[in-house]
């Protein structure tokens, strides 16, 4: 049993805690925040005790949320889903950061991991959160019925209140919590006992995200904002490639910087660490370091442009290489030999960088004896951070105190299995026996970037006698992201197939009888990560450009072609028809180019139309409009779906038009926002988002529009200028090369 005092009053509160597998009593307090979650630790073991809800006698309803909050909103949406079935008044609810315990709080839709990624949080937790809420409500009803001596069937709930209509009696949830007796096992809730969508009070109605007001008055706290007594500051000079090591270190000038405490050559390519009294001293000293690095055994003097040509040759079959099968339907590629006509298309995508606005950082405070640690870091996986802290320091996970903070953007960068942004703080804090905040500059963040990999694609399509698409063969040459980002999942549940690079090559809603997609894996030695939209961003640029190319070459309208391909997928057709209506597709304005793209992303149906104009002298593409129709299943927070989709479009625009990491002679060529150019307000088109309603389970929102944008723009250019852009980003120089005859359709 957990007992904690409330600092302000010195009073403890009796409360009801309830979970899926078992029930118990606990004491909760008011005023806990993200960094001060109530711990579920109690006399009961995690296998029998699964706490999500606590109700205090004064009516305060505390609900655990296992999501990390990086602006996507699911830290609010998950408790809201539970509160819906609990029939709680949202005003009574306090959101509590769930501690990093995957056995209790792991996402059943994400391999049981506590990992906020893949737009999978609401999708994965939706059903269990509803059941947990319904269980608590059942126990509350049973207790009210017992108290009043009436049948449970005579009771109903209003938000946070049980009502007995026959006698007009009412008891609040808090009142019931004060006398509630809990059953030895959690009640069973059958699916048909959950609310029907028409009965929802919270789902489908927008609430303000819990942390949003703190982002308007400056009080939001990210890891970079943490200060603890006695804290020093760290900076790291790191090798460009993870398998380089410091060969020589000249730190004389760095040590001479006022305020420098120490300089440490950290193991395993973590880099050379500077510890100083202030951030500015740490940065100044880091810049004064002179370090030479051993060449990367794998990457050597990697050159991305030359490598891209090699990747394209592999995809084309000119360089022979073993493929890994990703997805196959029907007879695979057998149909190509019997096809009446075949078409081929090639596409390329450059490296892209996350550019989350908060440069990576972490605070660690290792105890003097080195046997325990307290950490603060913005991570997409609280549990991974704890594991990495424990393994780095060689201590038990129970000796790691994790403090949850807000994330200044994630986009996939904060989810690697090795939690690289945390390691430097752990090692330096252990060295100096003081709390340390390790700060990466923007330049460090790019130099240490883990990129969406470069890729080369070749698609061959076969058509039958009637012009129908019968065969589809997609060959992708790219690095293996999964093996770098998450070897645990790669060698485990992924079965050594690179889901993070290849997802999006399947075309489940297109009626194409024979399909094959294959991965030609290369090992560049470059740091990699999933990035908003993962493999979809490159693969959909290839597939949706090529679908469009196929339609245009055959003289078929790209919308009608896709409607024909989705003839067996009514939800797909619905978003296509919706976006056609929004963009007035069938009566398009002359003078602009219109381009369409459609994606089935983990079940979310999404279609977009770009309207563009071009400057044929400069090669600049400008978006005037971008229309999106999205069907993500039940719309838990509709305005947030719109916001996420708007942002996802803006992110996709950057990857489509300007964002590019290049590597030459083993050096990353970009270093800050002057040469890694992301979208600003001046680039913004009019963006319109329509949610196409459906009652299916939620299937995800956060990144679904990002991969739409590049193919929609490329297809618009094809319509406007008659040239096909085959390489993202679609830089002005590439547009001009295409206009000058480099890439005629």
């Amino acid at each position, binding site marked *: 049993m957990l007992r904690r005092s409330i600092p302000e009053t010195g009073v403890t509160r009796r409360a009801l805690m309830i979970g899926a597998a078992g029930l118990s009593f606990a004491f909760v307090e008011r005023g806990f925040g993200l960094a001060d979650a109530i711990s579920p630790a109690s006399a009961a073991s995690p296998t029998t005790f699964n706490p999500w809800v606590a109700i205090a006698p004064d009516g305060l309803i505390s609900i655990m949320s296992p999501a990390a909050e990086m602006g996507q909103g699911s830290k609010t949406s998950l408790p809201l889903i539970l509160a819906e079935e609990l029939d709680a008044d949202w005003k009574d609810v306090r959101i509590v950061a769930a501690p990093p315990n995957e056995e209790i709080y792991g996402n059943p839709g994400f391999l049981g991991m506590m990992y906020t990624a893949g737009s999978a949080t609401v999708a994965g937790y939706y059903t269990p959160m509803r059941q947990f809420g319904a269980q608590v409500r059942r126990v509350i009803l049973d207790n009210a019925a017992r108290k009043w001596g009436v049948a449970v069937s005579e009771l109903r709930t209003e938000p946070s209140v049980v009502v007995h209509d026959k006698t007009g009696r009412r008891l609040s949830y808090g009142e019931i919590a004060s006398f509630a007796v809990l059953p030895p096992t959690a009640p069973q809730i059958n699916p048909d006992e959950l609310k029907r969508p028409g009965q929802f009070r919270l789902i489908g109605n927008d609430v303000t995200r819990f942390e949003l007001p703190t982002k308007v008055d400056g009080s939001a706290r990210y890891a970079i904002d943490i200060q603890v007594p006695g804290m020093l500051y760290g900076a790291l000079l790191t090798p460009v490639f993870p398998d380089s090591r410091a060969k020589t270190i000249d730190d004389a000038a760095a040590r001479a910087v006022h305020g420098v405490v120490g300089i440490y050559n950290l193991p395993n390519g973590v880099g050379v660490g500077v510890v100083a009294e202030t951030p500015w001293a740490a940065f100044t000293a880091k810049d004064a370091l002179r370090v030479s690095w051993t060449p990367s055994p794998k990457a050597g003097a990697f050159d991305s442009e030359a490598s891209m040509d090699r990747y394209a040759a592999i995809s084309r079959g000119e360089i022979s290489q073993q493929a890994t099968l990703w997805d196959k339907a029907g007879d695979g590629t057998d149909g190509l030999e019997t096809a009446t006509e075949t078409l081929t298309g090639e596409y390329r995508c450059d490296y892209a960088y996350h550019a989350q*606005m908060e440069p990576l950082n972490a605070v660690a405070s290792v105890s003097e004896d080195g046997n325990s640690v307290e950490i603060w870091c913005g991570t997409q996986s609280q549990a991974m951070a704890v594991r990495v802290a424990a393994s780095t320091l060689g201590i038990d996970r129970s000796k790691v105190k994790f403090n949850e903070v807000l994330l*200044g953007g994630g986009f996939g960068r904060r989810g690697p299995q090795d939690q690289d942004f945390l390691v430097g703080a752990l090692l330096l804090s252990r060295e100096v026996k003081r709390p340390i905040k390790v700060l990466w500059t923007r330049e460090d963040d790019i130099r240490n970037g883990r990129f969406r990999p470069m890729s080369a694609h070749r698609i061959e399509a076969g058509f039958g006698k009637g012009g129908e698409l019968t065969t589809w063969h997609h060959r992708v040459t790219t690095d293996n992201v999964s093996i770098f980002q998450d070897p645990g999942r790669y060698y485990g549940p992924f079965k050594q197939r690179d889901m993070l690079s290849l997802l999006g090559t399947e075309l489940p809603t297109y009626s194409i009888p024979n399909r094959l997609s294959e991965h030609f894996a290369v090992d560049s030695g470059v740091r990699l990560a999933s990035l908003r939209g993962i493999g979809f961003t490159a693969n959909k640029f290839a597939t949706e450009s090529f679908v469009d190319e196929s339609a245009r070459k055959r003289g078929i309208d790209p919308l009608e072609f896709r409607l024909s391909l989705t003839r067996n997928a009514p939800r797909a057709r619905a978003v296509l028809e919706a976006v056609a209506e929004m963009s007035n597709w069938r009566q398009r304005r002359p003078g602009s180019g219109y381009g369409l793209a459609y994606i089935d992303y983990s079940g979310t149906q999404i279609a977009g139309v770009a309207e563009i104009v071009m400057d044929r002298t400069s090669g600049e593409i400008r978006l005037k409009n971008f229309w999106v129709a999205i069907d993500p299943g039940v719309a838990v927070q509709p305005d947030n779906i719109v916001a996420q989709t*708007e942002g996802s479009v803006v992110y996709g625009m950057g990857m489509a038009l300007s964002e590019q990491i290049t590597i030459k002679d083993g050096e990353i060529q970009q270093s800050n926002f002057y040469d890694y150019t992301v979208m600003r307000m001046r680039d913004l088109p009019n963006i319109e988002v329509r949610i196409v309603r459906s009652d299916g389970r939620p299937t995800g929102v956060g990144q679904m529009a990002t991969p739409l944008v590049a193919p929609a723009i490329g297809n618009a250019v094809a319509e406007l200028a008659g040239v096909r852009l085959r390489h993202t980003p679609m830089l002005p120089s590439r547009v001009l090369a295409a206009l000058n005859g480099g890439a005629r359709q």
Partner: protein
Amino acid sequence: MIVHFTVNGSRAEADAPPETPLLWVLREHLKLPGTRFGCGAGLCGACMVHIDGDRAFSCQTQLSGIEGRAVTTIEGLSKDSTHPVQKAWLKEQVPQCGYCQSGQIMSAAALLKHSPHPTRDEIVDYMSAHICRCGTYPRILRAIERASREG
């Protein structure tokens, strides 16, 4: 060097090398972390503050240059989020990750102070000093127009 100035109406002093950016003085010395570090190069606007009423990149402002000047940060824009820009930000539900928003709000407040009814082009031009990686630009635009309208 020791520099005296005011922050959010209160007297402040900082003892740091003269080239230290105001950003780090605010965040780490004066414990006002609402002003954010994004690029350190005046390219993203996350560090935007007001100095003597005009917007300024605090990452590009050296400590030596603020002797006797008045600095306002997001923490001092209003006592209780009642500045018209903050009210509009809440109404339009602008922030996502929120990290850039202090700077965006400080710029928007400076814009409306100098130009209470800006055209859309003026807003876009002024606010393009900022980066929001979450892509909240449509809502920032709407919020500034709302703040201009509602005051």
